[in-house]
């Protein structure tokens, strides 16, 4: 039992954490540009249904992912028009997107609720997947799992090593100064918002095409909101997004393993189910306690509308 047990906990944790990582990294880029988009739940839902529909019609999971990405971008464009072009409140625009997206996905997804999709074979990384314990957990995963790891590196590199990343952060820190030295704040924010939408769409695609694989109304089940909290949890650092996502996934999986093992613990299951949420709050407190880390990493203009003519 022992080793395979650890291996399967690890495997399940990674799978549960993957959509959270992808969506949270997209949101992280959006927030670094100073825009708070609370629409992840709706964007994921629409991404999930679009990906499922296309994967089902074409039989290609890859096209499904692309469709999810496209749908996510269209959704975030709606948000952009409202919050960036029309300068509406970002919190409200994001909430509107969430509600609209959840409703819309249910609406257009009706015909697909009756459809099953064959599960996609994982990709085995040669040699590496033979490593005991870690191999099966880390290197026999779906392509999007590897994508999520690459994404962490790419986002970190982009933010801290590339010129465009520097510009993006400058826009998030002080849009007025960025504007005054000639950067097009609104365009840069649009790009960041679209990237966030694309990632939320891919996160949705992971759920409907690879994870469950099915489409049903309400299947995102709050994961968009959890991804949003992970961004703050991670104090806007890409690496910590991964830690947070796996911690959250790990809590959920661990309590199931405890239940399934038949261990003699006498705790109401509701308390076990609330563990991941309580843990998130606690870690958030631990991280935020040091004000300077938060202030250092959080974009100063987050959530504030940029008035071009002001």
């Amino acid at each position, binding site marked *: 039992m022992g080793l395979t047990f650890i291996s399967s906990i690890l495997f399940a944790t990674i799978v549960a954490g993957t959509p959270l990582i992808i969506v949270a990294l997209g949101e992280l880029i959006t927030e670094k540009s100073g825009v708070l988009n609370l629409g992840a739940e709706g964007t994921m839902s629409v991404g999930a249904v679009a990906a499922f529909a296309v994967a089902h019609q074409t039989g290609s999971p890859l096209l499904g992912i692309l469709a999810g990405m496209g749908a996510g971008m269209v959704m975030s464009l709606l948000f952009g028009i409202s919050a960036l072009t029309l300068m509406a409140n970002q919190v409200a625009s994001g909430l509107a997107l969430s509600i609209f997206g959840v409703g819309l996905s249910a609406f257009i997804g009706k015909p697909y609720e009756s459809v099953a999709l064959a599960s996609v074979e994982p990709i085995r990384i040669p040699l590496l997947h033979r490593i005991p314990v870690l191999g099966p957990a880390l290197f026999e995963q779906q392509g999007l799992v590897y994508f999520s790891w690459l994404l962490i590196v790419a986002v970190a590199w982009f933010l801290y090593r590339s010129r465009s990343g520097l510009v993006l952060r400058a826009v998030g820190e002080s849009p007025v100064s960025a504007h005054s030295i000639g950067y097009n704040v609104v365009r840069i924010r649009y790009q960041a918002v679209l990237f966030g939408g694309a990632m939320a769409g891919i996160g949705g695609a992971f759920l409907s095409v690879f994870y469950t694989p099915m489409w049903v109304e309400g299947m995102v089940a709050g994961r968009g909101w959890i991804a949003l909290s992970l961004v703050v949890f991670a104090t806007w650092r890409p690496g910590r997004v991964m830690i947070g996502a796996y911690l959250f996934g790990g809590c959920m999986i661990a309590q199931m393993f405890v239940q399934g*093992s038949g261990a003699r613990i*006498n705790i*109401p299951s509701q308390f076990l189910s609330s563990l991941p949420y309580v843990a998130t709050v606690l870690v958030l407190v631990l991280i935020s306690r040091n004000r300077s880390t938060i202030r250092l990493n959080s974009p100063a203009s987050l959530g504030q509308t940029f008035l071009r003519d002001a």
Partner: protein
Amino acid sequence: MNRRNLALATISGAALLASTALMGAPPAAAPTKIGFIYVSPVGDAGWTYQHDLGRKQMEAEMKGAVTTKFIENVPEGADAERIIRQLAQDGNKIIFTTSFGYMNPTIKVAASYPDVAFFHATGYKTAKNVGIYNARFYEGRYLNGVIAGKMTKSNIAGYVAAFPIPEVVMGINAFTRGMKSVNPKAEVRVIWVNSWFDPGKEREAAMTLISQGADMITHHTDSTAVVQAAEEKHKEKGTWAFSYHSDMAKYGPTAQLSGTTHVWGDFYTRIVKEVLAKKWTGTNVWGGIKDGMIKLAPMSKSVPPDVQKQVHQLEAEIKAGKLHPFAGPVIDQGGKEILPKGKNMSDSDINAMNYYVQGVASVFPKN
């Protein structure tokens, strides 16, 4: 586009026909309006889907005499009362409210519409014009357990469950008793996901159980995720699944061995006929295999013929009342005798079940 829209078109077409017919015909010939309230979207499998199948079956069998209408996704809070009342006010003469949370609103509305017949599924409060109905799902569970006990190699079954209410607990216990009746070494492990519907969590729970050695998987949640998870792991781990609510063979063509399927159509037709004939005097139906309210999902060809034969025989015994899934001795997890040998558990005791029987390896969630 799909069969649901086709169905909608048929319904509205039928309504149109009915209303044109109404203009020429005397009012007595007008079809009776019947309303249904569902707790979730109809979807393609699960609790509500089965009720909707029942509604369609009844409407087809009563063609011309009734028209039906349903409202889905009705929250079990304060909104239910308004929607039930609307249906009554709208001239629906028979109203089915298909989730436990509609019990009190149904009773309240029924008091102001004495000439409307109400039927509430899974509750316990009745009134002069409120009947209740439910099915002995546990009978199907017991038979599923027998198949599991015969076919398991690891002697471990995994059970993904929503909330520890008696309806779910009696299913777990019946399954366990069925399994142990043919395989004394068998044990059942339970994971509570605290949600009727969260495909992601249901799948995780199934995968967890599979990785902990369960080769027989079933669920008391509303999506098809658990059967799909078993299908996915079938090749690698030899996992088999039993569906619940609906026959989910479509989602687990190889892995699904059988399942417990809810069948409401016959009951709906029967009860509507009774009401229309003015013969209805109240209902408290708790029907099982005998009444056709529970059916086994067709056993797959992976179930060996001798097991199939045995299960059919047990099914017949349950039908005949010779076999009761909770026949004494019933011993709980801690070894305490709940019911002595030679007795069958009473319905009220079954309905109040808040313990696991011997053979369930998990600890009962004490609150």
